[in-house]
């Protein structure tokens, strides 16, 4: 069969490893790409003493390259310490798969980014963040760029949904330019809270709507 994907990629696509969710994960993250619309979630169980990734699972709403990379990245990360795992690069994942078509690179980068984000989420939740930079509006905005606006298929910052960001003594207040009754309001709120609340100096996230 003439396919742009090699046999190994197709095999991982057909039978992806480590799919599904972990209940009460120690770390988790979701990444979505506006350009392709792909989305991937990743869940971690980490040994509290050794910091070894005991279990890892992923879910993909994506194309073949996204699914195959999710599969290989979980295989590469499993059994490694979080410090080792966060150093895994896209290059390594792609090589482990025997190469990916260039045009599909961004769909697979997502699967690598989500591993790093899930580890970061773990570190933040477990007080392992070494560089304690005070949260700024810029940091909050950067994180909100990872929240998808399902109406447009682009992130909520790019689609001008973020009207205001205010940070006062561990409390972040975000105003979203949507009516509270909008069908996606709740989904966006939950997603935004999840991305911000794990920041080490944030105790509370308040999301408000314009109507």
């Amino acid at each position, binding site marked *: 069969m003439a396919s742009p994907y090699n046999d190994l990629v197709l095999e991982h696509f057909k039978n992806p490893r480590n799919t599904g969710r972990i209940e009460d994960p120690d770390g988790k993250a979701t990444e979505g790409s506006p350009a392709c619309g792909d989305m991937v979630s990743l869940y971690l169980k980490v040994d509290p003493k050794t910091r070894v990734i005991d279990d890892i699972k992923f879910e993909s709403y*994506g194309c073949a390259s996204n699914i195959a990379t999710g599969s290989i990245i979980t295989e590469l990360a499993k059994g490694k310490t979080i410090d080792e795992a966060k150093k895994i690069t896209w290059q390594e994942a792609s090589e482990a798969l025997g190469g990916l078509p260039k045009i599909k690179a961004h769909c697979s980068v997502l699967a690598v980014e989500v591993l790093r984000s899930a580890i970061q989420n773990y570190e933040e939740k477990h007080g392992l963040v070494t560089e304690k930079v005070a949260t700024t509006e810029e940091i909050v905005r950067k994180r909100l760029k990872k929240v998808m606006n399902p109406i447009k298929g682009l992130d909520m910052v790019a689609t001008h949904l973020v009207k205001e960001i205010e940070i006062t003594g561990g409390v972040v207040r975000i105003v979203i330019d949507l009516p509270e009754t909008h069908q996606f309001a709740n989904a966006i709120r939950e997603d935004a809270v999840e991305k911000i609340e794990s920041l080490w100096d944030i105790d509370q996230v308040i999301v408000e709507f314009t109507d």
Partner: protein
Amino acid sequence: MEKVYYLDNAAATRLDEQVLDVMTPLYFDRYSVATSEFGYSLGVEAKEALDDARSRLAQALGANSDEFIFTSGSAESSNLALKGVAKALGTKKGKHLIVSKIEDFPVLYSARTLEKEGFTVDYLDVDGEGLVDLEKLEALIKPETILVSIQHGNQEIGTIQDIGVIGTICRERGVLFHTDATHTFMRVPLDVNTIAVDLITVSAHTLHGPKGIGGLYVKKGTTLAKIMDGGFQEFDLRGGMDNIPGAVGFAKAAELVTADENIRLAAMRDHIITMVSEQIPDVILNGHPRQRTPQNANITFHYVEGESITLHLDMYGIAVSTGSACFSRSLEASHVIAAIGGDHERAHGSIRLTVGRFNTMEEVIFVEETLKKVVENLRKISPLGKE
């Protein structure tokens, strides 16, 4: 070769042997150019074959022989319709055109090219089922409007436009009307005696005919400039070597389409739409529920991505297409799904299944069952749709 389940007949079709049979002698026995009646016998015979094909295809549209010109396919036909009218009327009448937002690329990109050359184009909206807004069309027509180009049936979602009404509006306002009938010719009734249309794009590649041959109906008296210089072929509207085997094959292909066949295709289409809607949760039918081409089913499966679906289906020998950005070389999602108000996700998980002469109901049932299995499996690993 393994068994193939080919449900991408809107893209290209398998040639019918009966078409090839009438084409073969024109490659080996009567292979000359078409000459005038004063030429050598071989050339006169070739000319007769070409004229006969032209007359039969014109008749299929209710037109006269001298109103049908051969081209290399629907892309060339639509290029000629838009650019030819623009060239002929741009300085005389005006520089404004109207096309729908869901036209296929030849019309859409010809319009964009004309915009770069100083023409203005209005891109007409469609509703959620893909029908153009007729009131808006009327409002958009100006004294300087030279052409309205609105397709007959859509390439992706199969919606059939009310071209009878559109044609009447255009004729009343004195504006030329072109329709791209690539996906409806011989499948959906289209007669120039009952529909006020000036230019029609048709092609053989969607009708189990040869690739590389199409046609343009040009109503007698229509002002059109040629865009392909060459000899004086095709009533001096399209220079270039006559594709006589193609023309004869095209005429045969059109002739082989019967009303019974169209009923059979529609039955397979309806089977797909019904079974998928009943057996797979969270799906949307894209396009019009009734006003659609007999060969087209287009369905969005929520929570999964189209390229993943098509790749899985390919492993079973099933060929279908998707409007997902991930599937296209440009990584752009379907402009048709966007125009019917679909969000990114709707294009992302859309699958087009188009049936043809060589499909059977057994094949259709196998495809439905496989599709169900593939979508279920992909949904299992999707982060969406679980709460």
